[in-house]
């Protein structure tokens, strides 16, 4: 390939009579023929006025005139307006990604009956003002820019601040930030508004590339990254796939091989500095001043501490740098001021790998050095009070230097440097670039030039592309249906005049997306019904509905399916923004932590974007695994239970009102009488089936704790301290987690926890079977996340399965938050009664955990003991967290699955002879729980069944049947599709 391409350039340049291989402007222009030049997408925006139409009553605005004119030309009638119920459901999902609730529907239907146009307008305004609008439309943007919160590749390291870019996008949509500004900020916010923290966060767009943290060929790595930015930017902002032109003149479009590298030149100088913060100049100034003070006051201690690791640090650096090719080594050891931009870039990527290596140095210190380092760390911590709070770290971009690295055409004999420039067919001249004056670092100004070109109202590429995207999201198909590809390999526009009219209208109205939404959603075109049989003329002339003689039926996207389920069960947590949360939190999908490699349940099952490619339109697949997930996965089932819990609250046991409510909550409408009778029969049938054949492994049948005596039989009875009865603590059972309330006082950081239990099963993954905890399972290090947990590892644990462990998030000796897992390596088999204990000793002179375990199924089993050190000195017993038996606070992950017969918590470190298993009576325990029927000691325990709502009635066949009904409705196509 390269040979041909070089040959081509060679021929052309010789033809042009030039002495070098680089085709200059004229030669470049000559490579574009008239046919290519005439391609519609490169023509300036036309300025059409709305066409005249015969039917003068249908059109509500210009959009309708354009649509109707085409329909009339084919003798096709547009569909009648959809009914009010359909309109509000469609508008709600379109604009906020959530269903309307019953009150909103009723109010809208009433208003619509009086004045449809006014009601529509009011509805659209309300939805556009909802903060959920940004969550919905921000997500569309995140699809396009291949948003992910991790590096990709094998290690797939989490990017802890990436979410700020996600929040910026959501906020920008909610604030209706003009799209030209939205564009400029993402490409060059650092150059254009260096003092605006939001503009800095916006450049996170240029940080979304996957990053391989152990790549040794940093030159290749950089080349790949700037290629990728070029490709993505071409697709997202210009609707052009640039990739082909990377190797040769684009075969199908007039994008020259040079154009690719001219465009790439705009991004060649980027420098992904991890020290960039989002802060105002004032904040930065204050921070710098305070930091200076701290640095001066702590200088001596820091020097001393650094000196204890200096040698090891240097060795780590050297060892790491050695892994790179000698060329990179040479660059790495140059001082920054002797480096050009390209060398700075290479250095940065080598440095990142050095940083990773050095980070582990202090932890590997031994003996004296280790002690000394710890002491000095403690010493240094004394200055913490004067240390300023870190400014908000962000993933942002700046330029490496004012002079950008030179870009050459890859794999080519052409060694002429490329200069930044736009597509030759539109702007053959080199871009006019002025380095900005007021940035914090020298910058090239290249990205500003490019952003300004994109954000020009007469840019026929960027303006058409964005209005077409809006059209696509509202109709399920764009005017150009290939929304990321307007070139020859894409589809031609169905309504080119309308597209240009909208592009002009859009820029004339201040690049406001919200105004464009309103224009589209108040049109008769959008308001058409979708349930319309095609007329003879439609079948004949436009069977595919390209001309829009009806609306399109659409399946909900993954996020809306998930979020609508939570909305229906009234469980949706409306909290906005912040760091990504695990899937178990009942937040909107857009706030779920978004790693690139393992995808979340809904995104994986229902065609979510892959986070590596720009996703301009979601696939719509229909597969059996989707059905399996909807039928068998816990998530839809839990939503069904939550709804059933509400429905079965009523004392009135007649089924008809219940069926009405189920339909209303889930499908947002009343059932027909036929549906009611079907549902009634279904309820009865399901209840009868539950009664007739109690399932073999039912785990949720009684309100009283299920007593398990068998597991403890052979040995337990003879021994004191070991109860005969145990509570079944299992996920999805009524006692899946038990909160221990009303402790006399909270345990201190040194305490003893003892349990008598039998574990039924491990998790298939690496989750922990938690025996007891005071922790929310978060290891991020915030004070919120402090706590401890006592548990047993599962199948895929890094500590091997069946390992008795303590987990802590607390403070180390330096006062820094630290997450530690202390594994005893005592193995607790499943299906076996066991005595387990952990004695946690926490002190500045050395902390440790003493683990005990004894098999209770065999007589005379030994009591195993292991002592393991830990590094925490305080903050273990977090008063904000509840003491939980069989799980963790505020989460449904890492739950116990088995039976627990006794749990004793003592606020001191017990000696071996004081343990329960030695027959000792607990002395002044904070809590000593045993479980006897029929109910749990209610003064101590609060039950926490699945979901936030407690069932008010016992689980019975009737309840089961209601769950089945709700679950079925959540599975229905009516729930998944919008008309």
């Amino acid at each position, binding site marked *: 390939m390269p040979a041909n391409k070089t040959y081509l350039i060679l021929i052309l340049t010789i033809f042009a009579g030039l002495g070098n291989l680089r085709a200059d402007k004229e030669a470049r222009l000559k490579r574009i023929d008239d046919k290519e030049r005439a391609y519609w997408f490169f023509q300036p925006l036309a300025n059409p006025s709305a066409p005249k139409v015969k039917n003068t009553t249908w059109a509500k605005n210009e959009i309708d005139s354009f649509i109707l004119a085409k329909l009339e030309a084919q003798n096709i009638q547009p569909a009648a307006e959809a009914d009010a119920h359909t309109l509000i459901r469609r508008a709600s999902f379109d604009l906020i990604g959530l269903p309307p609730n019953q009150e909103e529907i009723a109010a809208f239907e009433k208003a619509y009956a009086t004045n449809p146009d006014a009601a529509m307008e009011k509805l659209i305004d309300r939805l556009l003002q909802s903060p959920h609008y940004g969550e919905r439309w921000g997500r569309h943007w995140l699809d396009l820019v291949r948003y992910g919160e991790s590096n990709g590749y094998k290690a797939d390291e989490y990017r802890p601040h990436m979410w700020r870019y996600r929040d910026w996008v959501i906020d920008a949509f909610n604030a209706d930030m003009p799209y030209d500004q939205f564009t400029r900020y993402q490409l060059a916010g650092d150059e254009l508004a260096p003092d605006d923290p939001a503009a800095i966060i916006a450049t996170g767009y240029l940080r979304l590339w996957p990053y391989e943290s152990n790549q040794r060929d940093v030159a290749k790595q950089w080349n790949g990254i700037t290629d990728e930015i070029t490709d993505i930017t071409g697709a997202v902002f210009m609707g052009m796939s640039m990739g082909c032109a990377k190797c040769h003149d684009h075969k199908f479009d007039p994008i020259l091989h040079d154009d690719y590298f001219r465009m790439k030149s705009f991004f060649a100088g980027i420098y992904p500095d991890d020290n960039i913060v989002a802060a105002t100049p004032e904040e930065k100034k204050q921070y710098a001043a305070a930091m200076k003070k701290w640095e001066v006051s702590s200088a001596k201690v820091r020097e001393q501490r650094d000196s204890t690791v200096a040698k090891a640090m240097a060795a780590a650096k050297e060892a790491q740098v050695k892994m790179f090719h000698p060329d990179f080594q040479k660059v790495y050891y140059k001082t920054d001021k002797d480096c050009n931009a390209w060398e700075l870039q290479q250095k940065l990527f080598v440095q990142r790998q050095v940083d990773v290596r050095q980070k582990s140095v202090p932890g590997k210190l031994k003996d004296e050095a280790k002690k000394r380092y710890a002491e000095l760390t403690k010493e240094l911590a004394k200055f913490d009070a004067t240390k300023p709070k870190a400014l908000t770290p962000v993933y942002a971009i700046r330029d490496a230097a004012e002079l950008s690295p030179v870009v050459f055409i890859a794999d080519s004999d052409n060694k002429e440097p490329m200069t930044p420039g736009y597509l030759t067919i539109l702007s053959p001249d080199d871009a006019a670039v002025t380095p900005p004056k007021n940035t914090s670092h020298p910058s090239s100004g290249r990205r500003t030039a490019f952003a300004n070109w994109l954000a020009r109202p007469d840019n026929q590429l960027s303006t058409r592309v964005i209005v077409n995207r809006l059209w696509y999201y509202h109709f399920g198909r764009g005017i150009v249906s290939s929304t990321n590809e307007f070139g020859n390999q894409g589809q031609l526009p169905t309504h080119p005049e309308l597209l240009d009219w909208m592009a002009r209208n859009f820029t004339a109205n201040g690049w406001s997306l919200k105004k464009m939404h309103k224009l589209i959603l108040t049109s008769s075109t959008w308001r058409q019904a979708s349930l319309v049989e095609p007329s003879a003329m439609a079948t004949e002339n436009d069977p595919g509905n390209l001309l829009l003689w009806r609306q399109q039926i659409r399946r909900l996207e993954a996020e809306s399916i998930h979020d609508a389920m939570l909305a229906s069960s009234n469980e949706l947590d409306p909290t906005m923004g912040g760091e990504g949360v695990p899937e178990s939190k009942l937040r909107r999908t857009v706030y779920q932590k978004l790693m690139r490699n393992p995808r979340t349940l809904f995104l994986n099952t229902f*065609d979510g974007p*892959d986070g590596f490619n720009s996703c301009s339109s979601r696939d719509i697949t229909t597969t059996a695994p989707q059905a399996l997930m909807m039928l068998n996965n816990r998530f839809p089932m839990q939503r069904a239970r939550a709804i059933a819990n509400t429905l079965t609250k009523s004392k009135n046991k007649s089924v008809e009102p219940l069926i009405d409510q189920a339909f209303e909550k889930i499908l947002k409408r009343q059932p027909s009488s036929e549906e009611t009778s*079907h549902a009634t029969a279904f309820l009865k049938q399901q209840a009868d089936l539950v009664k007739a054949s109690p399932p073999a492994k039912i785990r949720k049948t009684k309100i009283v704790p299920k007593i398990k005596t068998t597991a403890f039989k052979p040995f337990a009875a003879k021994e004191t301290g070991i109860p005969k009865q145990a509570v079944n603590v299992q996920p999805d059972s009524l006692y899946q987690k038990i909160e221990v309330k009303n402790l006399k006082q909270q345990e201190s950081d040194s305490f003893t926890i003892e349990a008598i239990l039998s574990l039924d099963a491990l998790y298939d993954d690496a989750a922990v079977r938690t025996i007891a905890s005071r922790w929310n399972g978060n290891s991020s290090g915030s004070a919120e996340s402090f706590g401890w947990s006592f548990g047993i590892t599962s199948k895929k644990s890094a500590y091997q399965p069946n390992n008795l462990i303590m987990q802590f998030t607390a403070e180390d000796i330096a006062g820094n938050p630290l997450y530690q897992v202390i594994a005893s390596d005592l193995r607790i088999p499943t299906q076996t009664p066991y005595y387990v204990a952990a004695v946690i000793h926490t002190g500045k002179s050395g902390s440790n955990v003493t683990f005990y375990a004894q098999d209770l199924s065999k007589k005379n089993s030994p009591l195993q003991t292991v002592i393991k050190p830990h590094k925490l000195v305080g903050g273990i017993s977090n008063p904000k967290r509840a003491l939980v038996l069989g799980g963790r606070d505020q989460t449904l992950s890492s739950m116990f699955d088995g039976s627990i017969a006794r749990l004793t918590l003592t606020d001191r470190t017990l000696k071996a002879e004081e343990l329960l298993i030695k027959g000792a009576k607990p002395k002044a325990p904070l809590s000593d729980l045993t479980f006897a029927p029929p109910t749990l000691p209610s003064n101590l325990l609060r039950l926490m069944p699945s979901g936030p709502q407690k069932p008010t009635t016992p689980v019975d066949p009737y309840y089961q049947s209601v769950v089945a009904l709700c679950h079925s409705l959540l599975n229905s196509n009516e729930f998944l599709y919008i008309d």
Partner: protein
Amino acid sequence: MKIHTPHYRPASSRREFLSRAGAGFGSLALTHLLSQDNALGSSKPTTQLPNYFGKAKSVIFLFMEGGPSHIDLFDPKPDLNRLAGKPLPPSFNRPITAMGEQDSPILGSKRTWKQHGEAGTWVSDWLPHTSTIVDDIAVVRSCWADGLNHVGSVCQMNTGSILAGRPSLGAWTLYGLGSENHNLPAFVVLTDSDSKPFNGTRNWGTGFMPSTYQGTPFKFGDNPVADLRTPAGISTRQQLEKINFINQLNRKHAVPRAFQSDLEARINSYELAYKMQSEIPEVINIDDEPKHIKDLYGVGQKQTDANAKNCILARRLVEKGVRFVQLFCGTGSKWDAHKGIEKNHTDRCAETDQPVTALINDLKQRGLLDETLVVWGGEFGRTPMSEKGDGRDHNPWGFTMWMAGGGIKGGQTLGTTDQLGLYAIDQKQHVHDIHATILHAMGIDHMALTYLHNGTEEKPTINQGKPFEKLFV
């Protein structure tokens, strides 16, 4: 029932609404949709797959993750021992190595080598079982790849590119050929331990293609596939009645929406899901295999057990019409012998040699080998230079793979590397060539199989590569 859904260029105009008629796990063949699509006149013409070549109906890819040492298994280099302890001769172009031990000396090979079979194929004493089937296999000693480390190289061997985002070879195969058993996933992935392969699910992902074509990992045990089991506490009968009720609702919903074909597809998907709930547990239940078969593969022996079970399952899946089975042997890069190659490869070979050999023999005795292409290889080989004294670094510049069945002519050894096995020099086979060869064996022209993505006609080998025709009968 053979549902042959040839690859088609998706009509972008209907693409968003088209319920994919493809071939993946439980996707639904709606061939009428395709014809409708053309009737719209909105799409480019459907490209029919040419009746190209290829006997293979299925592929079993035995992926030796981490990179086995070709120069200790299939590609003897006497000069290794002659030059052991000395630096790479100056005549060799010095590559950037992954671990950066730039000047490490040559590491000799402790293997004993013999020629085997009628063809006299060289195999080392690390693979005593494989040496008995050499007349069924074709050894290619001149493979090469672009990636230097595992991430890029594993990604390339599975998807063609060292960068993430492209469909896996299995996905391309399904896209091109469809499935022959719609109650089972058509692309199944098996790992020999609980470790995860490098890149995880992306190795069997679909990149820019619909997820319909992705691979489905199977596990032995109660829950072989995610969400396959009816939730605890719900009887089979309850589940069936629930599906009936859902589909009753859905049928009624579909009446005024008859033109929306994916509604019907969704109704079918629930029935299919129900069937899979019984079909998948059945196929993974290898307990019903006779003892002599289990013994043949090495079930129940400590070292071979995991791969023996996977190889038997691979055969059972292929018998049921599964299109592509990917086995990870040494899952989690366990062939990656940076140090202590003696122990590492002794163990890896002991784990795989017997099961892999049994698979070839078993397929052959059942008459399945002709229509099943078996591919053996890692993401790269290993360097002649030592690392950490007694290991070898990554070598993407020259390494060995072998193929059997599916029209491959056994008993050949093709391609050569240089005198030390560092660079492939003759009849070089890039990963793209290897992929083109595999597709060729399946009857797919790698340049004719295209998928339109963002305006680019994407091809499985990124417009490169060609089949290695000498491999075929």
